[in-house]
């Protein structure tokens, strides 16, 4: 056990936790104002039930010694997970660090179903998903499962987090169906500054995500840290260049997206590649997502906030390019195509396909099962009104005009009877009269 390593991991865990509220801002700015709170809550709420279920069960399924396919129940209820060493840091801290990954991964999926999925159904879905999909996939790669034995490289979760969430997002968008207004009316982001704030905070938190995945404070963490700076920078630069070369303008939403794509691309590679490779990877990795975003908007697939284009393609590109750029001189072990080890490329490709197929299939089963007991989407009247009011009974931007305090004894007063607003304890004649507009 080493106190420097422990200190860095304490900080990293907090940094990764911040990414979930950051994602709430990133996504929240991109939707219409009537759905702002609902969209932000879809990310925020993962901080509750998902974290609890992770501590009680998910962590054990992912990281307790078990079979190549799944962990076991030996850490269930955090049994045996104490402050003794797990590598260089306390076991409990490792559990918390991994917990922050388990929280943000299902929250990523929400981008595909915003503005129409019922909040209750979403809540049930992500809680089931983290146990049935995230925990086993994390076990395959990081918990000593079969993808780890195969030699698949996934430094901080290109496949485990991003391909996994994006595959689920694709299936969820198809099962829940498109928004009624999709393709009929223009649906515009209501607060682009929120999206930029979210992108900035995501980048900040991502230093913990990638450099923390070294699980120590040494050279590997420093490499991953520098690469987390360089790859998104290169993605942003190449995104900007493509914008300009195509004769367009450099947009703010585009810049925010480019940063996230660059972060996603470098995630699986962060501790395995040279800093120059990180620049190349970031620049190359931005391209598939750039064109996929443009293409997707012309299709019938209402992956509303482009989880597939940003996280799916970015994650897959990053995972595959890891098999090209991994370099033993920097990683201290694994190497890829350019270092004369072409088989790694194939391993990477296989691991992406396996995660993609399992996540998609399991998500389909979970959603179809949930649909048997509860409707997955809100009715069309509520969809028009917005989910903030229908599913949360709040509004993001309210002036408070005409808001009448409901006092406890007011329960007997019929709301809005005959057009008269009765204010308990006040003379009804001062209220708005019948026939008032």
């Amino acid at each position: 056990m080493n106190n420097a390593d422990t200190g860095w991991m304490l900080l990293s865990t907090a940094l990764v936790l911040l990414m979930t509220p950051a994602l709430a801002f990133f996504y929240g700015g991109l939707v219409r104002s009537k759905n702002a709170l609902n969209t932000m809550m879809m990310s925020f709420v993962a901080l509750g039930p998902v974290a609890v279920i992770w501590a009680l069960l998910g962590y054990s399924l992912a990281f307790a010694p078990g079979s190549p396919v799944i962990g076991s129940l030996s850490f269930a209820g955090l049994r045996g997970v104490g402050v003794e060493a797990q590598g260089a840091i306390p076991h409990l801290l490792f559990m918390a660090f991994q917990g922050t990954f388990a929280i943000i991964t299902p929250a990523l999926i929400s981008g595909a179903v915003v503005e129409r999925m019922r909040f209750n159904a979403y809540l049930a879905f992500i809680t089931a998903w983290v146990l049935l999909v995230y925990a086993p996939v994390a076990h395959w790669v990081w918990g000593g499962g079969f993808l780890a034995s195969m030699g698949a490289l996934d430094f901080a979760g290109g496949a485990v987090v991003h391909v996994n969430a994006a595959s689920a997002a694709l299936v969820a968008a198809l099962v829940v169906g498109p928004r009624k207004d999709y393709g009929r009316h223009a649906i515009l982001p209501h607060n682009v500054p929120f999206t930029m704030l979210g992108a900035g905070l995501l980048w900040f938190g991502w230093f913990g995500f990638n450099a923390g995945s070294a699980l120590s404070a040494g050279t590997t963490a420093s490499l991953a840290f520098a690469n987390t700076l360089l790859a998104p920078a290169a993605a942003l630069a190449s995104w900007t260049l493509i914008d300009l070369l195509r004769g367009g303008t450099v947009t703010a939403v585009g810049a925010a997206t480019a940063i996230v794509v660059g972060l996603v691309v470098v995630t699986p590679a962060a501790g395995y590649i040279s800093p120059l490779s990180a620049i190349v990877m970031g620049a190359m990795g931005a391209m598939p997502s750039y064109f996929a975003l443009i293409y997707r908007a012309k299709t019938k697939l209402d992956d509303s906030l482009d989880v597939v284009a940003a996280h799916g393609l970015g994650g897959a590109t990053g995972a595959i390019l890891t098999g090209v750029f991994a370099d033993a001189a920097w990683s201290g072990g694994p190497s890829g195509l350019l270092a004369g080890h072409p088989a790694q490329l194939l391993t990477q490709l296989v691991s992406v396909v396996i995660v993609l197929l399992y996540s998609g299939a399991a998500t389909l089963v979970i959603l179809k099962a949930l649909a048997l007991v509860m409707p997955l989407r809100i009715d069309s009247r509520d969809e028009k009104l917005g989910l903030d009011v229908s599913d949360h009974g709040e509004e993001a931007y309210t002036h408070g005009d005409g808001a009448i305090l409901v006092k406890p004894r007011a329960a007997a007063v019929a709301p809005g009877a005959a057009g008269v607003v009765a204010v308990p304890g006040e003379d009804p004649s001062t209220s708005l009269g019948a026939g008032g507009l």
Partner: protein
Amino acid sequence: MKLIVAIVRPEQLSDVLEQLFHAEVRGLTISRVQGHGGEMEHVENYRGTSVKMALAEKVRLEIGVSNHFVQPTIDAILAGARTGEVGDGKIMVLPIEKIVRIRTGEEDQDAVTPVQSA
């Protein structure tokens, strides 16, 4: 010439505009307003505070039209704005004394006749 003032649900605005453009009604002004029209107020909760939202968000359209456009305009608004539930809004038709198009100084009928695009 009449001034048509319509109060509609904000969530129906896109449908109303679509209908109006189909009916070739080209000139209009909208404003975001709040009002109370007898609909059920919904209750919102903020921490321990419950409030009944007595004023609902609405959109007001103002459209100056020549006489033979009054009925098509009303029909278009009805088609776009009606959901069948309390709170769909109102359409009011008011007489107009005079209209002047600022750009040209044209008055009345000429002022509300859309410019034929070249």
